[in-house]
């Protein structure tokens, strides 16, 4: 017995006993994994996967991997959402639905955690990797190896959070795991530890990415690209990364303190011994509110590229856009308390944070108007990215108004913890962040893969997403007013809520159809890629530097580093008709492939798993592994290889020939 606990910590056979719903999930996940393995083996693609993708340090490859993982996580978290809405549609009166109370709590915790950390953050960093270096006229990010470490730490978090399904359980505390509920006394199982370690590992990855992209933007812009000539997407990313650098250390500490409470018996957030649970709530939101803007600013950036391109006009109000970003970055650090007006901080404190909350709507409004003025008298093309934008403007504005409402402390006391709040933040995150990232993915897809996505299926996907989203969340606003609280797995029939819950469940069904159309869109586009190849490298007649490269962009991005003289540099080149045609190429240094990032991710995953199950020896080995790998890599001074001038000349001439053919 003692030996077993030394060897395996608190891991035993009980960890594998589940109810039927969880078993189904496990079976689906296992079948998915097995079919991927089978396909790779059948098509003899293992070597290709290893050499071209897993060990690659090319940010475009890393970006694609981020997006693939994030989309898989989207499927998981949408299934969680569908389960919750199905439960609420039927669990009335004497019917208690198909999920037990405890399991329902795990489902909504997993849904929130996965959506924010592993879907939204994954799509965010995926998009950044694809676009930022190209748009800056740079060949790479500042620290290519660190970039791969960040990605693999993110994957380690993803794997750990999903391991909780077959082995053990997940947190039943809500996605921010407030103490004292998340303390050992009330959550003695491994659920909170799974939550804690998957976020900690992925969070460190995000922090490193923040440092990486901020350095990239500040130090690696093309010659002549002053900050005032930088594309608006990069400005938005810069705002977002400043927030990452300041906010993520707060998350790191907060999670570490909760871990110390749970594992070493400390008293930061406990009810007794001089701990303070409200300190946790303050700390987590001091990270959590900036996190909202970390996600939304890059989505704003996407729209600032999409709208000018498809309106055929330059972006309206460039300077005011930059100031709006700066204002949002600053203000996002002084509104966190609006997440818990009901804490009892007193009228003065609540008034301050309420006013700040309303003020932050002003720069956001400035941005909305700037996009609308960009469209004004433009030659608008209603492509799929533009449709996502239009859906965004309408829903985001409604959600924003709901947010200002809740920014008033007296109103918040009524609406706190109700479904109105749930409806509000889903309007912001689906209507804002998700629509923005979908627009960006559709817009930049040809730059990465060399062909555009099927427009027709894209429209269908958009239609189902938008209508499903509205049907799913408008009822929640109403239910919130009627007093329905969030995280509720059962209610009384006499309340008369069931029809609205059924409408919401139908809405989620429509969103699922939308997701189906997106999958179909990708499949059909890949199969028929010959019909919509992007031969010019500039399929949308766009304005910024990334479109001056061939599609798909070569590993080195730019054969000759461009020199920038104006905003919308590529647009002006096209207007002047003087597209440079270089004849002499020079060799370019690019980073060598490296599997060390993947190994570090694997070791971090092992350490996380060992920490969850209190397997001391394994945690020690894994941490030593991380340290050793870092030492090994930092001691290696031979990390680049050279692409010869001849190879580059061949690639560039092939691209030029394609362009002439088009």
């Amino acid at each position, binding site marked *: 017995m003692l030996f077993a606990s030394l060897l395996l910590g608190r891991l035993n056979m009980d960890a594998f006993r589940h109810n039927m719903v969880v078993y189904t999930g496990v079976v689906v996940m296992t079948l998915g994994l097995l079919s991927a393995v089978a396909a790779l083996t059948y098509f003899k693609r293992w070597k290709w996967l290893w050499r071209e993708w897993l060990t690659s340090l090319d940010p475009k490859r890393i970006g694609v991997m981020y997006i693939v993982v994030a989309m898989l996580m989207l499927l998981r978290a949408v299934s969680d959402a569908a389960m919750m809405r199905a439960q609420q549609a039927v669990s009335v009166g004497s019917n208690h639905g198909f999920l037990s109370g405890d399991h329902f709590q795990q489902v909504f915790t997993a849904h929130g955690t996965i959506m924010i950390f592993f879907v939204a953050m994954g799509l965010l960093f995926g998009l950044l990797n694809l676009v930022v270096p190209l748009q800056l006229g740079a060949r790479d990010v*500042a*620290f290519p190896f660190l970039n791969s470490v960040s990605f693999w730490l993110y994957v380690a978090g993803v794997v750990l959070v999903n391991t909780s399904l077959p082995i053990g359980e997940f947190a039943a505390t809500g996605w921010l795991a407030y103490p004292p509920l998340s303390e050992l006394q009330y959550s003695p199982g491994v659920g909170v530890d799974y939550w804690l370690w998957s976020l900690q590992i992925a969070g460190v990855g995000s*922090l490193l990415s*923040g*440092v*990486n992209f*901020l*350095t990239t933007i*500040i*130090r*690696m812009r093309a010659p002549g690209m002053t900050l005032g000539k930088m594309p608006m997407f990069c400005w938005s990313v810069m705002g977002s990364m400043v927030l990452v*650098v*300041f906010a*993520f*250390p*707060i998350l*790191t*500490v*907060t999670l*570490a*303190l909760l871990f*110390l*409470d749970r594992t*070493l*018996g*400390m*008293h*930061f957030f*406990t009810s*007794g*011994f*001089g*701990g*303070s649970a409200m*300190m946790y709530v303050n*700390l987590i939101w001091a990270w959590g509110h900036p996190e909202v803007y970390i996600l939304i600013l890059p989505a704003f950036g996407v729209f600032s590229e999409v709208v000018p391109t498809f309106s055929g006009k330059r972006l309206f109000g460039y300077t005011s856009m930059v100031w709006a970003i700066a204002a949002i970055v600053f203000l996002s650090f002084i509104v966190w308390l609006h997440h818990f007006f009901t804490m009892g901080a007193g009228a003065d404190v609540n008034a301050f944070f309420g006013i700040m909350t309303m003020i932050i709507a002003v720069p956001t409004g400035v941005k909305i108007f700037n996009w609308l003025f960009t469209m004004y008298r433009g030659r608008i093309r209603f492509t799929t990215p533009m449709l996502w934008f239009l859906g965004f403007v309408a829903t985001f504005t409604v959600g924003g108004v709901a947010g200002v409402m809740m920014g008033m402390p007296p109103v918040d006391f009524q609406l706190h913890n109700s479904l109105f709040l749930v409806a509000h933040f889903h309007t912001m995150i689906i209507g804002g962040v998700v629509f923005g990232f979908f627009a960006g993915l559709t817009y930049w897809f040809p730059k990465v893969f060399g062909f555009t996505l099927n427009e027709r299926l894209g429209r269908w996907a958009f239609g189902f997403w938008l209508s499903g989203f509205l049907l799913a969340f408008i009822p929640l606003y109403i239910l919130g007013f009627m007093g329905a609280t969030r995280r509720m797995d059962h209610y009384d029939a006499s309340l008369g809520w069931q029809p609205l819950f059924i409408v919401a469940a139908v809405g989620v069904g429509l969103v699922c159809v939308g997701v189906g159309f997106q999958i179909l869109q990708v499949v059909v586009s890949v199969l028929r890629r010959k019909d919509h190849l992007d031969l010019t490298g500039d399929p949308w007649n766009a304005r910024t*530097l990334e479109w001056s490269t061939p599609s798909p962009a070569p590993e080195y991005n730019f054969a*000759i*580093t*461009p*020199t*920038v*003289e*104006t905003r919308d540099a*590529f647009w*002006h*080149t096209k207007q002047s008709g*003087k597209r*440079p*045609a*270089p*004849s*002499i190429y*020079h*060799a370019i*240094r690019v980073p060598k492939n490296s599997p060390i990032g993947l190994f570090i991710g694997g070791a971090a995953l092992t350490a996380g798993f060992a920490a969850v199950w209190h397997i001391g020896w394994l945690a020690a080995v894994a941490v030593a592994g991380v340290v050793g790998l870092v*030492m090994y890599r*930092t*001691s290696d*001074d031979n990390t680049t290889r050279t692409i010869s001038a001849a190879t580059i000349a061949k690639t560039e001439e092939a691209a030029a020939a394609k362009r002439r053919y088009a």
Partner: protein
Amino acid sequence: MTTAAQSPAPSAAAEAVRDDDKTVFGFWLYLMTDFVLFSVLFAVYAVLHNNTFGGPSAATLFSLPYVLAETLILLTSSFTCGLATVALQRRNRTQVLVWFGVTFALGAIFLTMEASEFRRLALDGNSWRASGFLSAFFTLVGTHGLHIATGLVWMAVQLGQLVNRGFTRGTVRRLTLLGLFWHFLDVVWIFIFTIVYLLGAVRI
């Protein structure tokens, strides 16, 4: 946008300078994130420092002369680290080894003193489990100690590399970054000394 088609290939030396400059900038950014991390721990300490749960407070627990000795040792190590960096600029291998060696020794003494202070507190029944105040104390000071330990391991590895490889671009860059890291830990300690120990002794 124009493309200077006739421009000569960027020289390897210029590229190397740009790379190093980028690395130093990125490392400063990392240090700033570490500063935020410590700020949060300081804030947590400020919130919890009176929550002694009936146990001893900072005023009765710490011995100022002992901490002053620790502080002087760490400050001296920062000075010798500075001397080592100057020697690094001059590419004087013996001096680099000697001064970083002294820095390492002082750092190790500091860490030992801190560990023995922790041990004494725990043996007296004032461990991190005793109260919110002690949890915050051990975590704040311990996190700094963990950083010092990391710095020591890093220093040992780098000195080994210097002996084996001499002054290469890589070894010089990493020793420079290590210097920044060490001074940063010194700055953090000044705050710990002031906020935890001095203010702790003043409050009765």
